[in-house]
């Protein structure tokens, strides 16, 4: 009797805990979750682990381990830069979804959007998110620029990062504008007609600029293909490079500016 009391059969809970501990202690587990991960065995909230969380994550290590105290105040940054990046990620994800259902030709484009909205599960929702997200990104990038200006954050040593920021704003507008044409409806066609007519007045090279942009003398299927490639591949590629430099420079220039 006494023996039974000393070694009772392990309960289900105890067994689960034991298996859990075994898995967490295994080589495979530890090879996946680097030190500082909350999934590691014996994780505790210590200054050391707080540092590891940042250092050992490919995404979080965009950040330094520690930031100035005023930098975490929402009232200082309004999160505008971070949100611009986040909306860009949302747009990439929703954009990839849209690419599955879209052919950039004059004969198919509008029909494909129509089909996407009416026959594809969540098609309408994802297209709405992509469109409204694009407008939000233009807004957040623009407001981010205003915020940075009013904080005098473009001053040394951050002059060049401001220049990169202006490039990013321009690229954001171009991304939004190239995407504007893709639904190939009346709104897209004539908005882009107005926009590209304006660019045709570039001094000296006006007609050449317009020809390169349109892939012809008038807007047509060639324009659609050209802007599609710009929108889904080339401009995102370029903007990601500039974003990488932008984020890197934020850290190299001593983190966020201020306090005022």
């Amino acid at each position, binding site marked *: 009797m006494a023996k039974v009391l000393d070694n009772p059969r392990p309960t289900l809970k105890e067994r689960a805990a034991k298996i859990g501990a075994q898995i967490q202690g295994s080589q495979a587990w530890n090879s996946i979750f680097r030190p500082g991960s909350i999934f590691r065995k014996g994780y505790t909230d210590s200054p050391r682990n707080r540092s590891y969380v940042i250092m050992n994550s490919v995404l979080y290590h965009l950040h330094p381990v520690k930031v100035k105290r005023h930098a975490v105040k929402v009232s200082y940054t309004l999160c505008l830069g971070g949100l611009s990046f986040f909306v860009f990620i949302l747009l990439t994800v929703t954009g990839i979804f849209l690419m599955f259902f879209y052919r950039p030709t004059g004969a198919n484009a509008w029909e494909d959007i129509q089909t996407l909205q009416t026959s594809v599960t969540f098609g309408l929702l994802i297209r709405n998110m992509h469109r409204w997200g694009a407008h939000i990104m233009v807004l957040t990038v623009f407001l981010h620029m205003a915020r940075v200006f009013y904080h005098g954050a473009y001053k040394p040593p951050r002059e060049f990062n*401001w220049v990169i920021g202006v490039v990013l704003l321009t690229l954001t507008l171009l991304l939004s504008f190239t995407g504007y044409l893709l639904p190939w409806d009346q709104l897209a066609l004539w908005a882009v007609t107005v926009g590209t007519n304006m660019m045709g*007045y570039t001094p000296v090279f006006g007609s050449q600029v317009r020809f390169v942009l349109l892939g012809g003398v008038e807007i047509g299927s060639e324009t659609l293909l050209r802007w599609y490639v710009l929108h889904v591949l080339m401009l995102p590629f370029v903007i990601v490079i500039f974003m990488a430099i932008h984020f890197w420079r934020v850290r190299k220039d001593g983190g966020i500016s201020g306090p005022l």
Partner: protein
Amino acid sequence: MTEIPEHLLKRAQAARDKAAGSSDASASEGGDRIPDALLDRTKASGAGAAVVAAAPAGGVPVGAGPGGHTQRLLTVVKSGSIQEAKAAPVDKVHTWPHLLAVEFVAALALTAFLFVFSWVVNAPLLQAADFNNTPNPSKAPWYFLGLQELLTMFHPMIAGVTLPGMGLVALILAPYLDRNASNKPEDRKFMTSMMTMFLIFWAVLTIIGSFFRGPGFNFTFPWRDGIFFEL
């Protein structure tokens, strides 16, 4: 191999001579190089008394100086001469959780807003593109409507290319033209007011182009003729 400059050789020789001379001197003094004044002070203090008192009891340690001293004051170096703290300590917090939590909430809030908004409001999809049917008015996307509004006032080359180009160049040059090093709002009234005027000017143009322009891009009132605006 680099030549050792002559003045350095001389200096090294002088140092060597000095060291040899002083070791002779210290040998003659029996190795005691603690200034008398310091020794007196140590003896006067309680610690000195303790050392003196302890020395007979425990015996003089090997290598100890006269009076049982096991430590010597070699030199006094003022902190400023060898170390200088240039950077003031910065008040910092850990990115996790302080910053990541804020970012996470902001991202979540934006996703929720975008999701609900997209659920409720559909993106426009008008009739398929038709080259033979020009809508009236034809408007650019909203962020270019300020430019389109400028088109009503200037020649297209000025409104469509020159002015926005100059605006971009001015933005790029801003940090190089602004020689004021302060980031305090009270020191930057000129730049702040310049930017504010620029932004208000632009916002007013965009709002007029968006809501106050109707068929033929003629001026209308949105409450009288309706809104001619698509996002």
